[in-house]
C-alpha cells in the first residue's frame, strides 16, 4: 500500500469517527434517537479503514455493512416512520452486498483475478448507492414538503444540504464501479484519480455534515438574511376554560 492510500485511510478514520462521536453527543443532548443511528454509522464506516489498512477488505465489509445499514435505520426513523418504505428490502440488499464484498475479496486472494476484484468493488459500490440514493430521494421529497411552510430558511436549507451530502457520497461509488475496467483498459493511472475522488468527497461530506448538524449562527443568519419572522402573539396566561370558550366562539359554536 502506498503512502498516499495509507494517509487517506488515517484521515478517513479520524474524521468520520470524531464526527460520529460529536453527532452522538448532540443526539443524546437533544434526545433524538434516530440521530444516534447516524452517528454510529459514521463511526462504523470510519472503523472500516482499520482492516483496510491491513489489506483486509473482507474485514472492512463487516464495518461497512453495519455502517450502511445504520444509515438505512436513520432514513427509516427520520423520514418513513408509520409510512410504507423499502427499508426491509434495502437491508436485505445491503446484507447480500456486504456478504459479496467479503466473499469475493477472500476468493480473489485465493485465486487472484481482476474479475473477482471487480465484483467485490461493484458490490461495495452498489451497497453505497442503496442508502445514499434513498437519502437523496428522502431529503428532496421532504424539502418539497417543507419549503412551503412559514419557517426559517436555514431549516429548509438543511434539507438541501442533506440531499447534497448524500449525493456526494455517490461519487466514490461511481468511481469504484468503473475503476478496474478503466485501469485495465484505457487509463492505467485511474486508481490515483479514484483516491483523489475519495479524499475530496470524504472531506466535502464531513464539512457538509458539520454545517448540517452544527450550523454556526453566522451561516444561519446568512440563510435567513431575507426572512422576516412572523409576528407571534405573546403567550398570555389564561385558564383552560377561557381558552376552550374562546375557541368555541371563534369557530362559531
Amino acid at each position, binding site marked *: 500500500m502506498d503512502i498516499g492510500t495509507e494517509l487517506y485511510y488515517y484521515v478517513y478514520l479520524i474524521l468520520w469517527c470524531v464526527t460520529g462521536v460529536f453527532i452522538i453527543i*448532540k*443526539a443524546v443532548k*437533544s*434526545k*433524538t*434517537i*434516530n*440521530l444516534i443511528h447516524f452517528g454510529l454509522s459514521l463511526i462504523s464506516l470510519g472503523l472500516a479503514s482499520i482492516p483496510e489498512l491491513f489489506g483486509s477488505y473482507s474485514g472492512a465489509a463487516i464495518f461497512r455493512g453495519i455502517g450502511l445499514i445504520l444509515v438505512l435505520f436513520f432514513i427509516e426513523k*427520520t*423520514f418513513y*416512520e*408509520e*409510512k410504507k418504505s423499502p427499508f426491509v428490502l434495502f437491508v436485505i440488499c445491503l446484507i447480500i452486498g456486504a456478504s459479496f464484498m467479503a466473499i469475493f475479496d477472500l476468493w480473489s486472494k485465493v485465486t487472484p483475478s481482476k474479475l473477482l476484484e471487480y465484483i467485490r468493488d461493484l458490490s461495495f459500490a452498489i451497497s453505497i448507492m442503496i442508502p445514499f440514493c434513498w437519502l437523496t430521494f*428522502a431529503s428532496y421529497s*421532504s424539502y418539497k*414538503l*417543507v419549503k412551503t*411552510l*412559514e*419557517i*426559517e430558511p436555514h*431549516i429548509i436549507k*438543511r*434539507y438541501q444540504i442533506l440531499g447534497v451530502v448524500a449525493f456526494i457520497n455517490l461519487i466514490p461509488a461511481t468511481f469504484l464501479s468503473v475503476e478496474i475496467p478503466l485501469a485495465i483498459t484505457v487509463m492505467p493511472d485511474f486508481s490515483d484519480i479514484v483516491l483523489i475522488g475519495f479524499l475530496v468527497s470524504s472531506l466535502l461530506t464531513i464539512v457538509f455534515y458539520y454545517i448540517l*448538524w452544527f450550523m454556526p449562527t453566522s451561516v444561519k443568519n446568512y440563510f435567513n438574511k431575507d426572512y422576516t419572522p412572523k409576528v*407571534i*402573539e405573546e*403567550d*398570555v396566561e*389564561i385558564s*383552560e376554560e377561557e*381558552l*376552550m370558550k*374562546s*375557541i*368555541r366562539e*371563534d*369557530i362559531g*359554536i
Partner: protein
Amino acid sequence: MTSIMEVLGDELANLLSIKPIQAKGLLRLSIRDVMPDKLAEDLTLQNLTDVLKKGLKGRLDRIGASNSEMIVNKMVNFATKKQSLITILKT
C-alpha cells in the same frame, strides 16, 4: 427558533380557522391530557400521533366541533408527512 408545536399549531389554526396561539394552546392541553409528564419538544412521531388521535380528538369533541374526526386525520397525515421536521427542529 421554530418548534414542532408552532408548525402543528399553524396547521391546526388553518384547519379550524382560529388564531395560531389558540391552536397551540389546544395542542398543549391535548399533550397534557395524554402525556402529562412529557414536554412538547420531547415528543416522537408516535407520541404526537397518540396526542392527536386521543387528546386533540377529545378536546375537539368537548368544544363541539362537528368535523373532529376529519381534522384529526388531517393533522395526523400532516405530522406523518413532515415527520423529518421533528429531527431537524430538535437538533
